[in-house]
């Protein structure tokens, strides 16, 4: 069976989840993705991507107990599945292969 492909944002979000480990919940993931891509993604956009990744079998989630503070809310934590980790390794392999041979940093086009 063919492995589902990963879009650019999906790959970025999946990497953020892998990087954050036990702290991978919506808000932290959004911050990480926004900081690294220098783009302000909406909460809805990040959750829609997380849901797509879950549907593709690259992520699983669980809901924690409400936080022990006043008005504390439950958090939905995400973690990559085995398929998700494989997809990350494959994406890294393809990226390395595509970048191979590019010796110098790419300069912007002269205006």
């Amino acid at each position, binding site marked *: 069976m063919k492995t589902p492909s990963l879009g650019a944002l999906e790959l970025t979000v999946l990497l953020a989840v892998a990087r954050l480990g036990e702290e991978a*919940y*919506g*808000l932290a993931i*959004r911050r990480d993705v926004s900081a690294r891509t220098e783009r302000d993604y*909406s*909460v*809805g*956009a990040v*959750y*829609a991507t997380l*849901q797509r990744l879950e549907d593709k079998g690259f992520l699983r989630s669980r809901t924690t107990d409400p936080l022990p*503070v*006043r*008005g504390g*809310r*439950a*958090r*939905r934590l995400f973690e990559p599945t085995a398929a998700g980790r494989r997809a990350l390794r494959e994406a890294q392999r393809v990226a390395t292969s595509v970048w191979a041979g590019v010796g110098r940093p790419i300069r912007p086009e002269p205006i």
Partner: protein
Amino acid sequence: MTQPPRLAEAFLASLGAQPEFRDAVLDDLAEELALRTQWDGVRAARRWYYREAIRSTPYLLRDWVRGLRLRDVSRLAGVVLTSYVFMTMIALTVLTIARSVMGTAGLSTGLQWLGQRHGIPLALTFALGSCAAVLGGYIAGWLHARAPIVAALALGAVWSLVGLVAIAAVESTVPPHAYLMPLVVVIGTMTGGALRARGTAAHWR
């Protein structure tokens, strides 16, 4: 802890998204609102919340569409039809009562122009249309507790479409403002749905 703006939160909760998706988005928005209130102050944090609510709306709507089943569509159609009939009955009843009251008072001629297609003052046309639309939207939202905004929007869309078809079929010369009525109807029904959603905001928590 800072409470999210009630209307914005109720609006997002009323878009029919799956409970898990909806709660995750609303919880994160609330958590970041609390942080931003500490960093930037209440006003800036609330402005951020409204902006983020608008940006997240398409994703919540998409989640609603994604989870749609045939029975949800037929239920929504039923809600639209029922609220349309309900609202028409209320409007006719109010008009009948108004006519009889005015007739008793000897002012029946004053209402005759209400039955005419032309010559009705523009402001009155829009005022009556808006009131009816808000009422219709509220009824649709009341009948569809899980997604009142979506139900109100669906009613507005159907109502506008029926109105446009009726105008095209009946009128030979259409006053230009008639084409603005669909917009008034959609805004009115959405307002009615939002009012209903606001009233039930505490229920989803």
